[in-house]
């Protein structure tokens, strides 16, 4: 029967355990491998053909427990209990065994067919951690396979084990809590019939005592009389222990994990751990940490922009020749012009993607894979708190420096909706590489590098102020930072490239269609001859308030597509790339300020729209346009004052 040869397995585990690497290795699909807690949110599926079997693999989100704290946790436990996968693979971080076992114990309570993959055994070995796999297997009565997912070690052993136990549930050892808790569990399970709920009776009893919201509601709807008993028992537990019954159970569970770990794990003093501690002493120190951070981030920027300007220059020459060829081959007509608008949009994307965004992300993900980005979150947490968000938001800001699109998407790492939104709005104010092209190409080149860097400082201060204001306006309790600090490890090329590709893919898939369509649209408006009408319509703002040439009205409209187009089109309209001949330093700075803040580009707007709805998106855009214009006008007046005074 073909049915028997088709099985479903799911991967469950805590963040950073290497679940994604294992998934890639099993299915050959690419996806994120990250250091950030709880980064995997999308549902990832793949298929593996092994021997005569077709194995569907589902990657559950990386989580820390199976109690309703986040959406991801609910997704995971619902899937396991409702879809009855043939096997659940618990991916365990061998270097964090004790913490990981807390989660394993919760999986065992779900009484699903389980195999433990003790991943990263190589790293554990290097750190002098010795684990007795057979003993663990015996204690849990569950198969335990050591693996190194990133290098494919142990994978076939793992699949063979899955095939052996598939569908075979509830054979695991039941770990017992303390006597009082077991008494309570016993009393509750006697009230629940087997198969009455989709979940095991013992698990229901534990979750009731843990005051799990969903399960309490489920039981309350079907058997309200059980809730009374639960209340009585948990009050009793609270009286005895002096704290909440959910904590009493959590405490006992982590104590069980502690005992298990002590029995199977021995740690020898070693070189790697002490190297890690020494690195942390420098990179997380209250003084040298910040110096190192500024050096690393500054070095990264300097490298990216030196390389980017060089490559972008090469592309310029190439694309100019291509345009000449196009004009000769297709001729000059309205249709040809529209066609070129589409191609030009693609070229503009290429010109920003390869010289700037690609190297930026490669360097960023090397730092992330190494473990450094978590250190930045640590160092910046205090400052972030003043904006009503916490240190993890820093990760989104840094990604946003490359491109706002993946920057806004990465806000999903924030725990609450309120923080996600604040972070996303602030990311739209982060100067992305396209904006940096303007800042450095205009202000940096013709006014002075210090002025350009000054604009960055200005942007940082502004983001800080906007953050402060929005955290005051958007009510809600700020979430505190709780973030695992992974040890430093050698960056793996494979994972750096797959993450870079993912970020670039988001940029290409989301940005490209929007940019091409709007590119053609704007060119059509241009061909219809409405541009001069638009620029004179906007001239009260552009000419009178901002003191810029009337043509900037058009530039700012094109800039919504891709911000760097402002610079490209400025050259086209003014007929020179030597901007100092046509613009005063004050005008260049004013133009740069407007470009930095006036509105997120279309691609970013579409992300905001998807994630937060059109209402919030429109409000953000309208506010930013108004605010940027007001601000740039003030900057202009200030500059005029100082220049005339000087």
């Amino acid at each position, binding site marked *: 029967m073909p049915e028997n040869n088709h099985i479903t397995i799911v991967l469950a585990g805590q963040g950073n355990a290497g679940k994604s690497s294992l998934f890639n290795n099993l299915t050959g699909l690419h996806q994120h491998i990250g250091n950030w807690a709880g980064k995997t949110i999308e549902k990832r599926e793949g298929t593996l053909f092994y021997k005569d079997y077709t194995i569907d693999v589902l990657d559950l989100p990386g989580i*820390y*427990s199976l*109690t309703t*704290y986040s959406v991801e946790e609910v997704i995971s436990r619902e899937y396991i209990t409702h879809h009855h996968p043939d096997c659940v693979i618990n991916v365990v971080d061998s*270097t*964090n*065994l*004790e*913490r990981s076992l*807390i*989660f394993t114990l919760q999986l065992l309570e779900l009484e699903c067919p389980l195999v433990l993959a003790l991943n990263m055994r190589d790293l554990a070995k290097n750190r002098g951690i010795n684990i007795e796999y057979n003993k663990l297997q015996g204690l849990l009565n569950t198969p335990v396979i050591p693996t190194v997912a990133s290098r494919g070690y142990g994978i076939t052993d793992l699949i063979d084990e899955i095939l052996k136990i598939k569908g075979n549930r509830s054979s695991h050892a039941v770990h017992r809590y303390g006597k009082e808790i077991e008494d309570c569990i016993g009393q509750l399970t006697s009230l629940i019939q087997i198969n009455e709920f989709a979940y095991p009776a013992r698990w229901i009893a534990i979750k009731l005592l843990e005051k799990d919201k969903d399960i309490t509601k489920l039981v309350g709807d079907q058997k309200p009389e059980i809730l009374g008993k639960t209340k009585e028992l948990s009050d009793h537990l609270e009286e005895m222990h*002096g*704290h*909440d019954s*959910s*904590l009493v159970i*959590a*405490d006992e569970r*982590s*104590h069980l*994990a*502690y005992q298990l*770990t002590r029995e199977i794990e021995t*740690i020898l003093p070693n070189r790697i751990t002490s190297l890690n501690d020494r690195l*942390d002493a420098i990179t*997380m*120190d*209250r*003084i040298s940490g910040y110096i190192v951070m500024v050096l690393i981030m500054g070095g990264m920027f300097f490298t990216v922009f030196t390389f980017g300007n060089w490559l972008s220059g090469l592309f310029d020459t190439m694309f100019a020749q291509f345009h000449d060829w196009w004009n000769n081959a297709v001729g000059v007509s309205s249709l040809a012009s529209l066609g070129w608008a589409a191609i030009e949009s693609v070229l503009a994307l290429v010109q920003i993607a390869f010289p700037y965004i690609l190297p930026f992300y490669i360097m960023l993900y090397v730092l992330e894979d190494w473990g450094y980005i*978590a250190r930045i*979150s*640590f*160092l910046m*947490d*205090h400052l972030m*708190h003043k904006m009503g968000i*916490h*240190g993890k938001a820093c990760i989104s800001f840094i990604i946003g420096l490359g491109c706002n699109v993946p920057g806004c998407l990465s806000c999903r790492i924030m725990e609450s909706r309120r923080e996600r939104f604040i972070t996303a709005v602030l990311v739209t104010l982060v100067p992305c590489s396209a904006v940096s092209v303007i800042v450095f190409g205009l202000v940096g080149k013709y006014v002075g590098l210090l002025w350009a860097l000054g604009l960055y400082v200005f942007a940082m201060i502004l983001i800080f102020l906007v953050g402060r204001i929005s955290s005051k306006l958007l009510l809600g*309790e*700020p*979430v*505190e*930072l*709780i*973030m*695992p*600090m992974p*040890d430093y490890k050698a960056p793996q090329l494979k994972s750096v490239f797959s993450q870079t590709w993912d970020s670039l893919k988001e940029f290409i898939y989301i940005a490209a269609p929007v940019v091409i369509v709007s590119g053609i649209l704007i060119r059509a408006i241009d061909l219809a001859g409405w541009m001069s009408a638009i620029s004179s319509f906007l001239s009260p703002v552009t000419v009178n308030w901002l003191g810029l040439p009337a043509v900037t009205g058009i530039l700012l409209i094109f800039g919504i597509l891709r911000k760097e187009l402002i610079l490209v089109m400025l050259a086209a309209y003014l007929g020179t790339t030597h901007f100092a001949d046509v613009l005063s330093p004050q005008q260049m700075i004013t133009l740069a300020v407007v470009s930095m803040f006036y509105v997120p580009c279309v691609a970013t707007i579409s992300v905001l729209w998807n994630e937060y709805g059109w209402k919030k998106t429109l409000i953000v855009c309208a506010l930013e346009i108004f605010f940027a214009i007001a601000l740039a006008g003030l900057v202009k007046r200030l500059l005029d004052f100082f220049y005339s005074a000087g």
Partner: protein
Amino acid sequence: MIAEKRSRLLSEMKSGETGLVVAVAGGKKATKRLADLGLTPGSLVRVVRKTLFSGPIHIEVCGSKFAIGRGLAQKIIMDFNA
């Protein structure tokens, strides 16, 4: 000499000190999340380092390290031998 037993907040501990958690008075979600990481009443916590001003605290619990915000550390009551 009998070591004097005192209790204070995790946020008041110095770098390098180890203590036993007596109670976690944070919000429900944060308390749960800490419990998932192994920080419950009765667990041993070592302060690895603190930051300048009132930044987060780098701690070690259950053999793994993480960072927690200072506000949360002010809600974790510790018991240790001074």
